[in-house]
């Protein structure tokens, strides 16, 4: 018990330290570089041209990557709790692609409604989620059935927005950046949208943690504890879709982020959602920032999108998880 607590504290501390280090590494990756003292002076003491450029160009994407990674990890943890299924990644089963499709359509076709993009994106995410849930449901959600249905729904939405992109000759750059999940041109506006999502997500997840824990029991047990099972499931699903569609509206559809991070987090801090949710958020920020920074660094001056890096890492990971599925929830 106490050893467990120490292990959790260590995981939090090391991950937070790694995130800080990754942040400074990301700041220094690219054409301009700076030192930590110069950066701090430039930020807080006196104007510094290099720091000002970095602040305007590089900071937003770094913060977008961190906030987005955290949100997507939280969304994954919640989705997996609802579906009692370690493979339920909203980025893999059509939720984020549904949301990204809706976001791209609004951005391109109804620019007057651009302010309401998150709303449309949420609706798109819900459509994706409902499709998967209804099509995969056969008295229970078997992990493999879920993932197969999810991939079909995901392929459908991905196909739709890629077709749309091709139709328009990729002229809608705003939409195209969402379609490719490209975060290189993110601005402080995007940061502030995601920040709102992140704060709301953390607060709601804190409220939902105990419910997520109960969802690990079998339905009968949950009901005999006096819990309204259907309402609980619906609320956590909505929360998960809300977070995934927030991510999709700003960043696009990224697979595997909501799969790998919750899985690693569960291995490191266990399945108690009161620890798992905050830790997954921290780890998600680290992983997505590393993916983005890696994509910027390895082929400089070209860039590999963080979504592509996640796909390369995530493919093998999914295979491992498929082999182990069923043991993750202690069944």
């Amino acid at each position, binding site marked *: *018990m106490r050893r467990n607590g120490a292990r959790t504290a260590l995981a939090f501390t090391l991950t937070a330290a790694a995130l800080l280090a990754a942040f400074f590494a990301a700041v220094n990756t690219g054409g301009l570089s700076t030192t930590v003292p110069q950066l701090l002076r430039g930020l807080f003491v006196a104007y510094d041209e290099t720091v000002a450029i970095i602040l305007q160009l590089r900071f937003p994407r770094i913060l977008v990557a961190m906030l987005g990674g955290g949100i997507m990890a939280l969304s994954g943890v919640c989705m997996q709790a609802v579906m009692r299924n370690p493979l339920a990644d909203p980025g893999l089963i059509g939720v984020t692609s549904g949301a990204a499709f809706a976001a791209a359509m609004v951005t391109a076709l109804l620019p007057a409604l651009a302010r309401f993009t998150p709303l449309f994106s949420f609706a798109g995410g819900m459509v994706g989620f409902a499709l998967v849930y209804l099509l995969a449901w056969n008295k229970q959600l078997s992990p493999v059935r879920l993932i197969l249905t999810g991939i079909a729904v995901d392929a459908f939405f991905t196909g739709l927005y890629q077709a749309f992109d091709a139709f328009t000759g990729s002229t809608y750059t705003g939409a195209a950046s969402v379609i490719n999940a490209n975060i290189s041109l993110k601005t402080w506006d995007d940061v502030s949208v995601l920040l709102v999502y992140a704060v709301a997500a953390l607060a709601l997840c804190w*409220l939902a943690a*105990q*419910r997520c*824990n*109960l969802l*690990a*029991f*079998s339905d*009968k*047990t949950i*009901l*005999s*504890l*006096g*819990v*309204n099972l259907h309402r609980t499931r619906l609320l956590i699903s909505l929360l998960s879709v809300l977070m995934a569609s927030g991510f999709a509206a700003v960043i696009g559809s990224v697979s595997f982020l909501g799969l790998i991070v919750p899985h690693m987090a569960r291995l490191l801090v*266990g*399945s*108690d959602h009161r620890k798992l949710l905050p830790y997954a958020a921290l780890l998600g920020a680290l992983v997505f920032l590393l993916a983005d920074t890696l994509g910027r660094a390895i082929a400089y001056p070209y860039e590999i999108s963080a979504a592509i890096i996640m796909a390369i890492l995530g493919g093998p990971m999914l295979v491992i998880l498929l082999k182990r599925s069923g043991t993750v*929830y*202690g*069944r």
Partner: protein
Amino acid sequence: MDDRNGLAVTDLCYAYERGKLVLRGVSARFAPGRITALIGANGCGKSTLLNLLAGILKPDSGQVLLDGRELGTMKRPAIARRIAVVHQSNAAPGDLTVEKLVCAGRTPHRGLLRPLDEGDEAAVRQAMADTDTVQFAHRPISALSGGQLQRVWLAMALAQQADILLLDEVTTYLDIHYQLEMLHLIAELNRKKRMTILMVLHDINQAFAYCDEVVILKDGVVMAQGEIGRVVQAPVLSQAFGVASEIITVAGRKHCLFRRQGGDYG
């Protein structure tokens, strides 16, 4: 005994699929403060009845009455404060500690946001003491044996501090040592706390040894009910299970010997 006291069902009907009634008008009373065995052949509707009594399933027609009040009109947490259930098989994350699992039994008392208070902690301690699980408190449940784990699930149900306890074949997957240990524990809870207990059992002799009353189901209706010593006779068992048997009394307690088809008592 007050007629409105305790748990009763009237004309209960339930179907999982349209047109296929599992329960076809079940009426029964479960005597307060007593241990009642619910027995019957496989598929006769025992578990279905138990789930209806716990409010886990909703009846298609008929009523479940708790102290004369229809269960369907009560809120779920209110039901869970009166009726606790231990199921045959359970699922939980393997790294969950025993103590945390037992704490989940406090859910109907505190909702999902209020932290545990002293009353909750006392109830959890008491439940673990009653089930002899205190020594496992900080162990993950994956480290326990089947018998120990079933005691932990019982502890969770006890932490609900309900006065009615429903047990659905809780000894089925246990070896005989743990079966008797579990039944002994249940009998003690009934004696010390005056809990009303209803358990689905397969072993007639265990029912004789540990239960006061019996309700026998056959094909979705109550075939017989009442005091177990009076009700359970060879013709009744023959009708309920299609087996030949003889009831004997050894040291003042009834036992049941079953006869193999065309063979001797075995």
